[in-house]
């Protein structure tokens, strides 16, 4: 199993470590609920170094990425980032990713850990069609740390005073010097809270992590494991590959129409999306349940007439709302918020209703 530059820190801090995407990662330190609340109320620090990092460069890099992804990267300027998708020709999702435009001919991609190799192979298999474009995998050299929460920006400014980070807009990034290295600070995240994700060389990761932990001590900063990362993203309704999105899920049936720009001349999967756009069959929706039993992935969802209408993508108990919540892929007729549904949990039909996403409203500036 691969380790991140911070694995030893996590183990020393008493984290429970698990295998995630081939990496030894902390799932929790003190407990998912306490960590979740720390991020909603103060600040949390996440090691997400397992995620994949690619550089795409060359004169035709933009053209290549426009063909490989669904969002319109042409609208993105230097120093800006964009959430996007890669699709198979049948419209199924290869992965979701963020593309950072470093310059007109250099782009940085952050992809899911569990899809890293697959994504690299997928990009590699097409890059030859775009002469002069190079694709490099930098995953093993780079660490990624996320600082999230209402106190995140204050804490960050203490470590990087006078750098102007607080002026950085959402989905914008800047390069900063740190201990003789250049690091990338981006106003992105997966929690719905204010904050940043910082990409830096492995040999600086512990120093930055420690500096942020120290600077945030008085605000109650906590290290956060993958368990709370999942409950935080689910309260916001953000997709997770392997749950809401998959190789056999079309983005137009997964609440991701906003990242599929049908006005683009061409991209892989466009024709399939055109078909689904005319006749979508299902939709990913949010829902909550009465009672306390927790819906889990693949549990069946039924309508009031006991007909199966879909299945659960993700489920948890919301640490903020203290009720069972989840996402489900349902037949389109049932996607309206307020629609009564039933989730079968160990033989019992738990009543609930479709809910508007996000479940929790944060005041992310």
């Amino acid at each position, binding site marked *: 199993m691969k380790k991140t530059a911070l694995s030893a820190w996590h183990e020393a801090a008493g984290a429970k470590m698990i295998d995630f995407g081939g990496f030894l990662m902390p*799932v929790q330190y003190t*407990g*998912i*609920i306490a960590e979740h609340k720390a991020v909603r109320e103060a600040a949390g620090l996440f090691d997400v170094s397992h995620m994949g990092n690619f550089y795409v460069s060359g004169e035709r890099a933009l053209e290549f990425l426009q063909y490989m992804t669904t969002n319109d990267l042409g609208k993105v300027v230097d120093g800006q980032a964009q959430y996007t998708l890669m699709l198979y020709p049948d419209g199924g999702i290869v992965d979701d990713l963020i593309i950072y435009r470093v310059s007109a001919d250099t782009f940085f991609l952050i992809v899911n850990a569990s899809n890293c190799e697959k994504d690299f192979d997928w990009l590699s298999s097409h890059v030859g069609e775009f002469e002069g474009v190079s694709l490099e995998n930098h995953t093993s050299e780079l660490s990624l740390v996320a600082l999230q929460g209402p106190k995140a920006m204050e804490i960050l400014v203490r470590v990087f005073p006078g750098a102007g980070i607080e002026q950085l807009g959402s989905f914008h990034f800047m390069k900063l010097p740190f201990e003789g290295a250049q690091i990338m600070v981006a106003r992105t995240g997966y929690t719905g809270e204010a904050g940043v994700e910082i990409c830096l060389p492995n040999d600086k990761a512990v120093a930055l992590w420690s500096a942020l932990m120290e600077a945030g001590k008085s605000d109650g900063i906590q290290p956060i494991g993958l*368990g709370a990362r999942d*409950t935080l993203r689910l309260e916001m309704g953000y997709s997770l590959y392997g749950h809401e999105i998959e190789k056999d899920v079309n983005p137009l049936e997964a609440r991701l129409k906003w990242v599929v720009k049908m006005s683009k001349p061409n991209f892989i999967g466009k024709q399939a999306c055109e078909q689904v756009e005319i006749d979508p069959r299902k939709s990913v929706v949010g829902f909550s349940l009465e009672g*306390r039993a*927790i819906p889990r992935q693949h549990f069946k969802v039924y309508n009031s007439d006991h007909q199966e209408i879909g299945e659960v993508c993700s489920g948890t*108990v919301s640490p903020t709302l203290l009720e069972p919540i989840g996402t489900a892929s349902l037949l389109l007729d049932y996607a309206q918020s307020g629609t009564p549904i039933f989730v079968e949990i*160990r033989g019992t039909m738990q009543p609930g209703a479709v809910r508007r996403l996000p479940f929790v409203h944060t005041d992310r500036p």
Partner: protein
Amino acid sequence: MNIPDNLRYTKDHEWLQLLDDGVTAVVGITDFAQSELGDIVFVETKAVGTKVAAHGAFGTVEAVKTVADLFAPVAGEIVEVNGALDDAAVVNSDPYGEGWIVKMKLDNAADVESLLSPADYSALIGE
């Protein structure tokens, strides 16, 4: 990991304490089990009066991340369910005390002898 000397254990990470009346036992999950499960948010058991076979499922423990079945360490009838489990986090904070799960009237008190000793259980979880 806390493994009290006065209890018996199962490979499913439950503990059982035979009470002084010699027929009633208290059942809960071990410190190791609560630690592995993480934040427990809901405990559901079969109703008082339900008869369960040895190793029969009598309930579930829902943690944020996962769910686990509860198995009867020995055969018997559920005679009481812990009312304090409305706040299921008590199973995390005090698995051998306030976080007990059910009391059972045992079909055969001698069955308790078949359960793991504290030393056996300690070896099972690799301590």
